[in-house]
């Protein structure tokens, strides 16, 4: 039998039901992996003792025939979800001593289904970044390496730690958040599935806010099927978030049972440019043919404002962030920097300067600038109008097709020492293919497709219309079968 931590969630649930092994044994195999891979710096806070207690409870539930939908499944949680009585830092020094007195809705939902949390994972500070190196707790490391190289690569971000735990078999699934690609991009860099439901599908209650009109919870898993199990557990209306939707939930299971006959899949022509790696381009073309052979009709579509997505995002997201992060003032929680004789304003300034990292400061500055008197209309309003045009582009495309197939990223994982890639603007451009779906609030998934010539994973993205998560899973499940990607990082 395979090592327990290498099973799929669905296999595991069946085996637990059949008493082939216990939740405690399952947990033990994951704890071993967590302990063996601490050099990847995937966790900010491990909660292994708490996990042991929960696994015992899960075993009791199986014994009493009271097992819930995900009973005993070990999962890791991005350290941006507030967890009651468990430190929640958002990878920031300013929250390094914050212990929430309440639980986020998403973790409440997941724990209510019997999930066992292994710990809180590393991320770019306040979810701002694409490399996971903007963390006050040190960078997280991708378990993948180029063939024959020992150079550490970035796992992507911001939800890098969560992606690593799933790719390196430290957890069976993980929670992330996606504001402009923070689930899909690390999933692609780490060779796993990453799914972001429509904006409004998941409650944002208890998620440390970055950009509220874009922030959305998402999941990581090693298969489309496992992603469906986790997504079903977290989606749904919550009255604690006014933007949470009452729209009827999709049936992902039945969607995954369907073939592609009769489905129209769009290929947006604007995704061909933007410095796309030729290997990714070729893989994308290949996947398009696979879907055609499966019976889908392939349709060329146009999303004319794609190239302005990054610029509009880097107005809107920092603007919202500068407002959201105004709450960190050293008064009610988190870090306080104070020296005798300081005024209240001086205390605010000292606290924020000491507590925020460089990238977060940069984004707060940009956000403050674009919202400041005299610039608001030129930048913020203009960006919101461009966002409207992007939403309209997608609306017109989805009049013609059921889903879109695109690349996730322009390149594969790169080294922390790669100066060209690590330039701030170059990093912003990393999200060029993931930002548009975020701007329009659409459900989108990254699916691991193939290793490139250097042995690094490439992902492909499926995007569907608002609240049509079923179409994402239908295409993704069929695509996954055709691609047959079953590789794990060497040594994990």
């Amino acid at each position, binding site marked *: 039998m395979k090592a327990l931590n290498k099973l799929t969630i669905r296999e595991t649930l069946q085996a637990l039901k059949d008493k082939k092994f216990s939740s405690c044994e399952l947990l033990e195999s994951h704890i071993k992996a967590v302990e063996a891979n601490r050099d990847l710096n995937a966790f900010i806070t491990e909660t292994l003792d708490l996990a042991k207690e929960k696994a015992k409870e899960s075993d009791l539930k199986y014994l009493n025939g009271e097992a819930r939908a995900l009973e005993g499944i070990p999962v890791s949680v991005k350290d941006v979800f507030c967890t009651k009585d468990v430190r929640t830092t958002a990878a920031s020094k300013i929250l390094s*001593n*914050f*212990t929430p*007195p*309440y639980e986020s809705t998403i973790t409440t939902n997941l724990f209510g289904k019997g999930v066992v949390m292994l710990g809180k994972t590393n991320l770019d500070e306040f979810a701002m970044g694409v490399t996971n190196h903007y963390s006050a707790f040190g960078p997280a490391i991708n378990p993948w390496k180029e063939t024959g190289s020992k150079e550490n690569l970035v796992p992507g971000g911001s939800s890098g730690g969560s992606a690593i735990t799933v790719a390196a078999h430290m957890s069976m699934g993980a929670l992330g958040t996606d504001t402009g690609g923070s689930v899909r991009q690390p999933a692609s860099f780490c060779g796993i599935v990453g799914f972001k439901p429509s*904006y*409004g599908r998941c409650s944002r209650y208890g998620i440390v806010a970055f950009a509220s*009109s874009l922030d959305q919870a998402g999941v990581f898993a090693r298969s489309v099927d496992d992603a469906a199990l986790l997504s079903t557990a977290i989606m749904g209306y919550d*009255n604690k978030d*006014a*933007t*949470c*939707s009452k729209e009827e939930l999709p049936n992902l299971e039945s969607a995954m049972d369907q073939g592609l006959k009769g489905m129209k899949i769009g290929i947006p022509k604007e995704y061909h440019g933007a410095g796309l790696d030729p290997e990714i381009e070729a893989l994308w073309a290949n996947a398009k043919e696979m879907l055609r052979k499966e019976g889908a009709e392939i349709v060329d579509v146009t999303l004319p*404002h794609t190239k302005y997505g*990054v*610029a*509009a995002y*880097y*107005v809107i997201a920092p603007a919202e962030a500068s407002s959201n992060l*105004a709450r960190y*003032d*050293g*008064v*009610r*929680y*988190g*870090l*306080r920097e*104070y020296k005798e004789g*300081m005024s*209240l*304003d*001086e205390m605010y*300034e*000292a606290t*924020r*300067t000491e507590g*925020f990292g460089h990238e977060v*400061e*940069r984004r*707060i*500055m*940009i956000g*403050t*600038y*674009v919202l*400041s008197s005299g610039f608001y209309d030129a*930048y913020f309003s*203009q960006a*919101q*109008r*461009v*966002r*409207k*045009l992007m*939403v309209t582009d997608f609306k017109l495309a989805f009049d013609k097709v059921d889903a879109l197939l695109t690349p996730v990223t322009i390149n594969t994982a790169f080294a922390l020492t790669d100066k060209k890639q690590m330039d701030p*603007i170059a990093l*912003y451009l990393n999200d060029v293919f993931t930002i548009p779906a975020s701007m*329009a*609030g659409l459900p989108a998934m990254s699916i691991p497709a193939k290793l490139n010539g250097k042995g690094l994973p490439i992902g492909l993205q499926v995007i569907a219309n608002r609240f049509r998560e079923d179409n994402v899973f239908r295409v993704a499940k069929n695509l996954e079968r055709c691609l047959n990607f079953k590789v794990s990082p060497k040594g994990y």
Partner: protein
Amino acid sequence: MTISKGTVLKTAKLARLKIPEDKIDLYTKEISNIVDLIDTLNEVDTKGVETLVNVDEFSITTQKDEITAGNCADKILKNAPKEKLGYFVVPKVIE
């Protein structure tokens, strides 16, 4: 540079951030580069396009303003950097 050192310092003040003397040039350069990126939005003709506030602007739900949780002041104050008699303590504001 698209923006001046003065603008950077004014913005930092508005954001309640203090930029160390030796980093002002770095911040001015970095922020100028980002402003150059977002300036490309000016290429887009948005005449007559409405401003999008939220992708869900028509479906935001409302509810009665009722107390659903409470009696947890002590738990909240546990995270306070400084508290006294059930209140957050800040430097003296009024002389």
